[in-house]
């Protein structure tokens, strides 16, 4: 009710303007001071509403942030989590330990934790885990995303609390596909009738899975289940309520089996507009704005008044902005041309001008903080002169004197495809057009809607395009389906990159269980990609966010979405929300 006509007196305004503290920085000096205490809430801004809250069905990252947080445990939990040292997947969660792996790397045995309770009080059993995998694998369930990780899972065998997952192929990333994809969901909630009980995992992925009336009945119920909007999990936070279009509220789970978090509640408040969201933050309606626009970070979140209440910071989100050259197009067939194109992209200027400094020069598909990142890589420099030489060498010269290079009667004219939702495309495109024009290359832009663009990319119907590559963690697990030549048909190798040597390295890396040797393979692979330039990495995306100063031990992890609310706490004297009362 504080929000009625409250006019800030003019005096206060001038005071604020008059005494801007010089050199105010975004440090959080008192980060770990004092003993952590329970209490208070965090009101976090969400820019869009989750589609649903079933971790197997949702197609949106926002839903996953609410469901499993930053490191695999919030309402629901995974079998394993990332360790805070090198962000490998070695922390046990609903499994008591990392799996025992057979010598042929085909079977993985997990022991399911005892003493874990669902939020409704029922105990977690290995049956729940088996059920989760059966539900995800069911071809009649709307679980496309989850299922795409299970393609190599052939069978699951159970013996008391131990579960053996049998894979059809050895792969370094099998553990991740088993323990880091599916949040474990309760069987007694989603399959109260036990419709799937009489089927084994093998039955579900076999022909029965598509036709059996019982499975069909289960899938229909599962897809539209009430718990898809009111989840019952095992994690440190319980679902409290979801006001459609307004907010999503979670409460601390006092019966949590693990280390209990400090905040009483997490409120995700849906504010679709960035300006309104920043206004709401400043007005005290929200406490955390995980993402700021670059202009908001550089200009609208400075000054003493802001610094007194908030901390703002930059963080990496494991994403690279890249320009893809369709390697099959006549002009991009030659690697010298692709190198030349890269040398015409002035990355630092783009970072400074468009991202307002929020970004680092892009070099590789891997993040510089990843273990397998090759530190010896050198991004091709901005060098229009050398670029012109390379183009000449490749035979692209201006033969007819019209200002545009040509070769064998083909003019160097291409189309740059972008999506209408992409902010960056609109700004990037004119910069590139100008730079390429000076080098005798004509680029036109074409803007289409995202889902149409996705289709065009899949069908390789484009000359050049831009996309951000996102990763779920620091491992190169996803490299294969983007860069291997087999990924041209059906995978994400939209740009038609076919290089036998690079293919072989990726194939070997997936089967190399020695981390050190695997690293060497990835290093070599990154060198080839950098040399071939099938894709030009423009920058590593850095995001910026702001949060209220009252939070302590504010940890941001190198995983999406960054903020780890399970570790945040507020000293008693600074607590803003009491659980009993509303804000």
């Amino acid at each position, binding site marked *: 009710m504080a929000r009625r006509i409250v006019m800030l007196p003019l005096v206060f305004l001038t005071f604020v303007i008059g005494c801007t503290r010089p050199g105010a920085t975004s440090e959080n000096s008192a980060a770990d001071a004092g003993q952590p205490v329970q209490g208070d809430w965090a009101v976090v801004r969400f820019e869009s509403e989750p589609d649903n809250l079933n971790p197997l069905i949702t197609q949106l990252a926002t839903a996953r942030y609410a469901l499993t947080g930053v490191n695999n445990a919030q309402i629901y939990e995974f079998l394993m989590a990332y360790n805070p040292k090198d962000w490998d997947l070695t922390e046990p969660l609903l499994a008591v330990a990392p799996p025992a792996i057979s010598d042929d790397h085909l079977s993985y045995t997990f022991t399911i934790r005892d003493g874990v309770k669902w939020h409704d009080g029922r105990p977690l059993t290995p049956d729940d885990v088996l059920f989760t995998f059966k539900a995800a694998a069911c071809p009649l369930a709307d679980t496309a*995303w989850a299922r795409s990780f299970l393609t190599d899972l052939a069978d699951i065998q159970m013996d008391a609390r131990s579960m053996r997952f049998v894979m059809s192929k050895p792969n370094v990333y099998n553990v991740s596909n088993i323990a880091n994809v599916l949040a474990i969901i309760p069987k007694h909630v989603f399959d109260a009738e036990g419709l799937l009980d009489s089927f084994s995992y093998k039955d579900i992925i076999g022909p029965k899975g598509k036709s059996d009336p019982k499975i069909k009945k289960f899938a229909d119920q599962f897809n539209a289940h009430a718990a898809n909007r009111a989840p019952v999990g095992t994690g440190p936070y319980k679902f409290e309520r979801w006001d459609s279009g307004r*907010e999503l509220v979670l409460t601390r789970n006092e019966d949590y089996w693990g280390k209990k978090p400090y905040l009483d509640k997490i409120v995700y408040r849906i504010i679709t507009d960035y300006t309104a969201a920043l206004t709401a933050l400043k007005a005290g309606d929200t406490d955390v704005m995980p993402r700021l626009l670059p202009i908001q970070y550089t200009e609208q979140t400075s000054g003493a008044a802001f610094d007194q209440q908030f901390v703002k910071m930059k963080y990496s989100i494991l994403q690279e902005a890249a320009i893809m050259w369709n390697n099959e197009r006549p002009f991009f067939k030659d690697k010298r041309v692709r190198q030349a194109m890269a040398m015409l992209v002035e990355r630092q200027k783009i970072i400074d001008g468009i991202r307002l400094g929020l970004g680092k020069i892009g070099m590789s598909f891997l993040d510089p903080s990843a273990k397998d990142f090759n530190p010896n890589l050198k991004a091709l420099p901005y060098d229009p002169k050398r670029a012109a030489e390379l183009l000449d060498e490749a035979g692209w010269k201006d033969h007819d004197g019209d200002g545009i290079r040509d070769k064998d009667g083909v003019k160097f004219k291409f189309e740059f495809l972008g999506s209408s939702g992409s902010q960056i495309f609109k700004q990037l495109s004119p910069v590139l057009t100008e730079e390429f024009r000076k080098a005798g290359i004509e680029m036109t832009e074409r803007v289409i809607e995202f889902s149409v663009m996705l289709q065009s990319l899949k069908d390789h119907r484009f000359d050049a395009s831009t*996309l951000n590559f996102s990763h779920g963690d620091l491992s190169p697990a996803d490299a294969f389906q983007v860069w291997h030549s087999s990924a041209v048909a*059906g995978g994400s190798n939209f740009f038609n990159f076919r290089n036998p040597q690079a293919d072989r390295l990726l194939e070997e890396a997936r089967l190399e269980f020695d981390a050190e040797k695997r690293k060497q393979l990835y290093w070599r692979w990154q060198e080839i990609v950098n040399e071939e330039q099938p894709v030009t990495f423009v920058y590593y995306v850095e995001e910026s966010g702001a949060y209220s100063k009252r939070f302590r031990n504010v940890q941001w992890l190198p995983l999406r979405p960054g903020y780890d609310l399970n570790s945040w706490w507020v000293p008693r004297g600074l607590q803003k929300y009491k659980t009993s009362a509303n804000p």
Partner: protein
Amino acid sequence: MRIYFVKRLLLMVPTLLGISLVSFLIIHLTPGDPALLKLGDSEQRSGNQLLAAQIIDETRALYGLDQPLYVQYLRWLKRILTFDFGESLRDHRPIIDKLKERIPVSVKLSGISLLFAYLISIPLGVHSATHPYSIGDRVTTIVLFGLYSLPNFWIATMAIVYLGGGDFWNVFPVYGLASPNAGSWPWWQRLEDELWHLILPVTCLTYYTFAVLSRYMRVGMIEIIRQDFIRTARAKGLGERTIVYRHALRNSLIPIVTLMADLLPALLGGSIVVETLFSIPGMGSLSYEAVNTRDYPLLMAIFTLSALLTLLGILLADFLYTLVDPRIGYEKSATA
């Protein structure tokens, strides 16, 4: 006349059928695939996409998209005859539930805004017409056209920045239609809270319609006021008020009534811009989402509903003509 309107109502059936068929074709022939989008948004890691083709096929089959288009359309038609809109591809909720959630929001927002638009523009237009080229007329014209040329996303953003309690005045809430904890308040406080939330969005939806509506009113009125029967009325010695409000106004409402045909669909249509800026979960944002995610059943429901309302709106306008101008009748010239 009753026969005429019954005929019109019956004619709506084939018209709707035609519209639904065309909408269906447009929706399904647009590139993009809901099953493909199900593999996740751009912010999450992806699974084994090499084998994803099979998963996409399975998902398409789940949505019934593996059938030939005419089968899909007939299925849809069969469902719609029992007023079953089907379920959304996004969350498998019945579409009717989603509409029930969103429609009241949009009706409230657009309803209030339209009410104000008419309440303010009609008197303004009348005044301008009865005092043409006076200072008052000129000033209103300039102000209204000034407002008309200000884009509402800009006005909304300015209002959010300056009136939302960021660095400036804390006058209005800037998101949603209720305070977060309003649920526990008594009804009068909730009502006050909601009205308070409505002020900015309604203003942004309304102000630029003044120019159009009042212009229509002014032009219609000026034309009428010069006609013989008004001169006769003056000659009879009727007072100016009676002349303007009883004789002239009713006759000059025809163009305004024509605009009313858009009223019904506008009530439901919602505004993507205002809804997005003020985080209001209405029909505008629902439609936009449905397009982006290729939620075919939801799109069909929205298309059909707005087609129905447009047809009803036109019918309503035709009916209103007979009220404002008794000379208009539909008995004999029905086919003309």
